[in-house]
């Protein structure tokens, strides 16, 4: 099998699994998850093979694995689709494969495979636990298996298909296809427990919000196609096309943008939707309604990364006409601004969240902001690098949180007390209860907050900061530094509240470590969350000359002109060290001893700011006021009451009345006498005729035949004698 074939086949095992599960093995849970995990494993294997092949190819970026076929005939040419694996793809493929596989495995444990059926579980609700009798005959509650177990695996399998498609596709169209498939899956999975009203709402919210972005992105794609007549990377990222795009101005000289600028911005808005950047970030926190593996996979590791992957992929287009260190293109400027702002904004919100998953959700938003900002300042490699590392440690964190929640739920089931197993203030002291989760979570957290030298997060973040510093984007630099501080702070807050101190509730007392299917992925991801950083250590780090940064060489070579690795300088390095440690220590100091039933110690000093943060700057309310309410109003009052009922119906009724009267006239003076008369006459005629001639219909086949023959021969002979002869 050639490598091209392998790449083509890469997405299909999950799709196959999806189909099989949905159509056939839905009943059988074990078989279903075996299928799904097996498919994930296959795809993972394929990705790894591709990875090694890619490493063995010399000068890979100049001759990537490419293969394409004709797809749609357009006028006289073909719209071709295909696969395109270059260094960037390989890097993405690497983390996608790992995270997806890990999360598939994790889901098995998370949905309590092997546990008994719930007592009163129903489809579309979280399992409520089952009562079993232990060997002493005491009834006690244990977690119960997810009612829609198979369906879950079908969905994530479909999702995996979408992701692989997106990553390996060689043109924006198939990328968009994968993009939308993932959108659908995200909708399905957020609303996985569809009996919960909040889940339904969250699902719809996510779907609509991302849709806004997607529509704009589609506009961008269409405009691009209309300009270049193609969508494949090879074409649209070629020098002359980019040049042409920069020279052409947007229609109607829109904001004085060039076509490249406009397309870039449009595409970027798509990313804003997908990667939950401000102002379209509102859906991501609510998406935490879905099961934790979903949050981990879709809303942390892969799908939201897909947005960033897309802009990284489109970087040549966005940065068309930009030279390193030069002034930013409009698109880049926008990205820089949005990214930076989002990073800070989300980080601040994360400070005041008590739900363990929501904290992570906001931190995700802010980290994505990091990447966007990095791209905005042209730190191509740094962005990609951070994408990879973030995928690992954020997946790790989410899975860890999932494991924590799982443990808490165990406790809650054990002691039937009414506490929210996701609220960090109900936890504490889990360090001893769930050691594996604790250590892995700490690794993830430190990586997130960028603890120097060891963790992966440090290297990527440091590179971003370094680039921002080197190209003298001070605002970006400062903001991101500040954000890093906050990040470290809330990470430490999380760790402290969750694991340190004494258990604050009974449930926390009785929490226990999760099954190996959940912890094993944690360990793997933990290892990756550390080691993924080492590939990107700058060559002249600390003045000593290391073998130069492999990742930089590798991914950087994707671009046409190889971006220069920034020279090492002490200032950003020290900054990141200071902020990360500072944040961590602060967090530890503040949340060291939170007592049972205590409120957040920040609440008093910050006051109304805290409430603002807690309510996410009232963004939901704002959108509600701006969009939702007006929409309702237009729909109900305006359209329904006035337009429809009032004007249109009124008019129609008028017409109807007129028509009715006219019809009456016709009926009485035309129809009844004339037409009916005629019709009846015909009917009568036919009836009489029939009465005369029905005697010949005896139902005797032979007589029919006889008559038929008589007529036939009569005609024939007549024809022969009188027509042919003379």
């Amino acid at each position, binding site marked *: 099998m050639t490598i091209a074939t392998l790449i083509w086949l890469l997405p299909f095992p999950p799709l196959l699994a999806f189909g099989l599960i949905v159509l056939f093995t839905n009943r059988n849970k074990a078989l279903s998850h075996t299928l799904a995990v097996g498919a994930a494993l296959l795809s993972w294997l394929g990705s790894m093979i591709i990875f090694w092949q890619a490493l063995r190819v010399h000068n890979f970026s100049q001759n990537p694995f490419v293969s394409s076929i004709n797809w749609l005939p357009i006028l006289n040419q073909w719209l071709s689709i295909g696969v395109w694996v270059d260094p960037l793809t390989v890097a993405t493929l690497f983390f996608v494969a790992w995270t997806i596989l890990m999360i598939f495995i994790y889901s098995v444990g998370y949905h309590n495979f092997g546990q008994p059926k719930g007592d009163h579980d129903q489809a579309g609700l979280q399992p409520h636990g089952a009562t079993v009798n232990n060997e002493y005959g005491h009834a006690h509650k244990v977690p119960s298996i997810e009612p829609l177990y198979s369906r879950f695996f079908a969905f994530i399998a479909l999702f995996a298909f979408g992701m692989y498609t997106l990553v390996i596709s060689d043109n924006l169209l198939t990328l968009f296809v994968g993009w939308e498939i993932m959108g659908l899956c995200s909708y399905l999975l957020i609303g996985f427990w569809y009996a919960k009203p909040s889940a339904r709402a969250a699902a719809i919210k996510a779907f609509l919000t991302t849709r806004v972005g997607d529509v704009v992105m589609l506009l961008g794609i269409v405009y691009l196609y209309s300009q270049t007549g193609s969508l494949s990377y090879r074409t649209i990222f070629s020098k002359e096309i980019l040049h042409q795009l920069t020279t052409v101005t947007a229609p109607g000289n829109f904001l004085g943008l060039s076509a490249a600028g406009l397309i870039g911005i449009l595409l970027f808005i798509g990313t804003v939707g997908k990667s939950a950047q401000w102002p379209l970030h509102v859906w991501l926190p609510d998406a935490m309604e879905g099961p934790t593996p979903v949050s981990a996979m879709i809303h942390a590791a892969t799908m939201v990364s897909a947005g960033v992957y897309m802009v990284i992929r489109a970087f040549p287009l966005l940065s068309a006409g930009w030279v390193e260190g030069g002034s930013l293109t409009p698109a880049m400027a926008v990205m820089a601004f949005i990214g930076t702002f989002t990073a800070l904004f989300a980080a601040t919100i994360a400070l005041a969240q008590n739900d363990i998953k929501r904290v992570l959700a906001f931190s995700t938003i802010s980290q994505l902001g990091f990447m966007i900002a990095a791209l905005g300042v042209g730190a191509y490699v740094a962005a990609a690098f951070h994408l990879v590392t973030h995928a690992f440690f954020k997946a790790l964190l989410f899975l860890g949180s999932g494991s924590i929640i799982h443990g808490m739920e165990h406790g809650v089931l054990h002691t039937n007390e009414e506490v929210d197993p996701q609220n960090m203030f109900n936890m504490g002291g889990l360090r001893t209860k769930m050691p594996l989760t604790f250590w892995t979570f700490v690794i993830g957290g430190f990586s997130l907050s960028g603890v120097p030298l060891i963790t992966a997060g440090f290297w990527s973040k440091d590179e971003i900061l370094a680039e921002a510093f080197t190209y003298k984007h001070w605002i970006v630099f400062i903001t991101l530094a500040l954000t890093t501080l906050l990040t470290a702070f809330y990470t430490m807050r999380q760790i402290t509240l969750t694991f340190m101190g004494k258990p604050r509730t009974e449930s926390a007392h009785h929490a226990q470590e999760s099954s190996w299917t959940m912890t094993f992925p944690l360990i793997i991801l933990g290892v990756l969350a550390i080691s993924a950083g080492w590939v990107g250590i700058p060559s002249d780090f600390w003045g000593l000359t290391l073998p130069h940064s492999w990742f930089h060489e590798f991914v950087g070579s994707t671009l046409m002109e190889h971006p220069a690795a920034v020279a090492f300088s002490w200032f950003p390095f020290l900054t990141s060290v200071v902020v990360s440690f500072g944040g961590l220590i602060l967090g530890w100091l503040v949340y060291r001893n939170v007592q049972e039933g205590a409120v957040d110690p920040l609440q008093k000093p910050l006051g109304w700011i805290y409430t603002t943060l807690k309510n996410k700057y009232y963004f939901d309310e704002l959108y509600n006021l701006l969009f939702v309410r007006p929409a309702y109003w237009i729909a109900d009052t305006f359209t329904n009451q006035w337009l429809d009922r009032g004007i249109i119906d009124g008019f129609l009724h008028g017409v109807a009345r007129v028509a009715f009267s006219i019809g009456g006239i016709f009926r009485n003076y035309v129809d009844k006498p004339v037409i009916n008369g005629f019709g009846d006459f015909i009917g009568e005629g036919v009836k009489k005729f029939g009465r005369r001639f029905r005697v010949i219909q*005896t*139902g*005797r*086949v*032979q007589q029919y*035949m*006889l008559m038929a*023959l008589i007529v036939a021969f009569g005609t024939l002979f007549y024809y022969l004698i009188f027509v042919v002869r003379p």
Partner: protein
Amino acid sequence: MMVPLSWYLIFSAALFCVGLFGVLSRKNAVAILMGIELMLNAVNVNLIAFWRYRSPSFIAGQAFAIIVFAVAASEVAVGLALIISIYRRRNTVVADEIDMMKF
């Protein structure tokens, strides 16, 4: 062989007419089917005769004859099955008695 084509044609015409007479005049439905068989045979004779006399090298005549065989076989099978089931319900096979056009 000194037999002119016309003899075959006349023969098959005669056979055909006899069959037709049978179809039209017999009472018993099975006998009617027999008549049909005769007609089909007449047709086959014609086909083969034309093949032999007009274009021995071109096999179409025989091919069609084969197809006529198939048709005859299936026709008999279905026809007899119908007759038998009618006989079961109506207890008759006289074509004239089967004149109510529904069952």
